[in-house]
């Protein structure tokens, strides 16, 4: 088949919008488009798919943009879990724009990597990331929490492309991740599974049942990322039901463990790329984060678990996030 016949200009433009916007190649694409040099567009597109690695700077810019759009969305909807969203966004950005082998045009491709947002209350950050990655339209973010919107307060797989499973009740993601990793093992497939959970969430016993199973089943294709912001809903984790030392607990359960700065994208990239040197070992990455990261007055404050900024606070937050860009 002649490759040129697969692409018309609209399709190409669509691809550009969805994927390439992010890469340094974006400007080249746009230029080629306006010149209607179809052949060149296709070559660039194929090139970009094959070499789609974004540098740290581009990933950081993307994370800032996602923070800003998340803030706007929460402010518009007058609800959300902004503290835990800000703490997770560098992790989500690194996963979706660097690590995960996924294709927004085929969200259910059987061999895709799987990601589970076990801390489902931060759905808005996931929606914003999915929108920037091309799974849904950016415009749709304005419907967040509106009557009959697909964008519910917690993610729904049957409505939103890119969502793997319906979360919102804490402590469900890791067992499901084990099933996904086991499925890859059974079918001899190479997909990887990533689960992001909260640190407070680890108080749910289901996680520890799963922790035992993951090592027992030798699931080295499974990575658990703990968003270790040291806060839960009503208080510090340490003052509620101390979990420390998290990494040592997982190590005792047979996992490979590392700790990283959860806001350092270079560190996150490296940690996510790596798999345990010991065959069969699942990996737990403790990402040290701050709730409300990026917005000074929210940072490390328990009350910003699900508070909504007022007008002045919103404006200040926008200013701070924009200044960082």
């Amino acid at each position, binding site marked *: 088949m002649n490759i040129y016949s697969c692409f018309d200009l609209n399709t190409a433009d669509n691809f550009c919008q969805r994927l390439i916007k992010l890469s340094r190649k974006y400007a080249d694409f746009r230029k080629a488009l306006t010149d209607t040099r179809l052949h060149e567009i296709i070559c660039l597109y194929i090139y970009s798919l094959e070499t789609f690695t974004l540098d740290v700077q581009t990933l950081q810019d993307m994370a800032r943009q996602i923070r800003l759009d998340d803030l706007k969305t929460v402010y518009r909807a007058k609800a959300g879990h902004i503290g835990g969203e800000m703490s997770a966004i560098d992790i989500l950005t690194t996963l979706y724009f660097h690590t995960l082998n996924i294709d927004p045009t085929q969200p259910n491709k059987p061999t895709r990597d799987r990601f589970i947002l076990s801390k489902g209350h931060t759905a808005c950050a996931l929606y914003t990331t999915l929108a920037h990655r091309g799974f849904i339209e950016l415009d749709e973010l304005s419907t967040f929490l509106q009557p009959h919107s697909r964008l519910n307060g917690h993610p729904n797989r049957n409505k939103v492309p890119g969502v793997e499973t319906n979360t919102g009740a804490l402590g469900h993601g890791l067992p499901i991740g084990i099933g996904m990793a086991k499925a890859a093992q059974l079918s001899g497939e190479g997909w990887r599974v990533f689960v992001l959970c909260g640190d407070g969430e680890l108080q*749910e016993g289901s996680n520890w049942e799963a922790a035992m199973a993951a090592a027992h089943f030798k699931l080295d294709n499974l990575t658990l990322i703990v968003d270790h912001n040291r806060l839960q*809903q*009503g208080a510090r984790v340490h003052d509620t039901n101390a979990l420390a030392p998290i990494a040592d607990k997982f190590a005792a359960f047979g996992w490979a463990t590392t700790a990283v700065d959860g806001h350092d994208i270079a560190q996150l990239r490296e940690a996510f790329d790596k798999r345990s040197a010991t065959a069969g070992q699942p990996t737990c990455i403790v990402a040290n984060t701050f709730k409300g990261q990026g917005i000074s007055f929210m940072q490390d404050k328990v009350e910003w678990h699900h508070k909504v900024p007022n007008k002045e606070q919103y404006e200040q937050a926008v200013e701070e996030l924009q200044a960082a860009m």
Partner: protein
Amino acid sequence: MITDFDTLHDCRDAFVSTLENLASENNQIVAVCNDSVGSSKLGGFRDKWPERLVNVGIAEQNMVGVGAGLANGGKIPFVCAASCFLTGRALEQIKADVAYTHANVKLCGISSGMAYGELGPTHHSIEDFAWTRVLPGITIVAPADPSETKGAVEFAANHDGPVFLRLSRVGVPNIFDSNHRFVAGKANTIRPGQDLTIIANGTLTHRAFQAAELLAKQGIEARVINMATLSPIDIDTIVSAATETGAIVTCEEHSVHGGLGSAIAEVVVQQCPVPMKILGVPGVFAPTGSANYLLDEFGMSATGISEAAHQLFYNKGKKRIA
């Protein structure tokens, strides 16, 4: 009975103020929660008796088990959590450790029904009547206003055995005056009527009352019953309503399967068959929307209830109702 429909109350306030009053007189009363001090409004309790608030963290199965152990040790634990996680996550603990063991545990399901609105079906608690109702020995109460909430909490503290208090955060008007005496297992007729009966509880009672006012304008006199206690159910009041008015509409902030409507139907079909209409969440996971939006959407606005009642009224006496 209801004079002011516009001033709405969050029944959690009556819940905690009553609990604190009781706790100040009886130091065996303790509270158990799951990182839910704020949403259960237990901040005041914690400040007064920090050592009597047991916050186990985000761990509902543990929470209910701990409650059962505290009861065994002579305490009167009020186990407070979002109703969806309390009943859903810890159901086996509720069955084995609380109901079967007959432990003196007071399960307090906060923000039950559709209260969490936009947070979606993981947070909606529209199965909790069904799940708890099938377990022998749990008294289940869904109070309709602050006064009834106070009575229900006092009952729970004094009753020896498991209680499930199904509470909401959705605003409701005052229905009963402050002298109202709550009696577990006894329903209240809050509006007389002979043409048909509307039975509701919790946040739906005031909507049912308003529906009856709309029906009165159309010449239909509906009896309105507040059935706060779901289990044990008030059989006599149901049988009188069926035999005297000939048709029953039920409304609840719960699935149409297994809740108040089902409990009443179990009595009606076996003792006094009359046509019924069960209003509730119609066997679906709700779409995105606020609690009040979704209740209206599912036909439980005052108008929606009155229309369903109207239709049932004209179907009275028919062999089969479409």
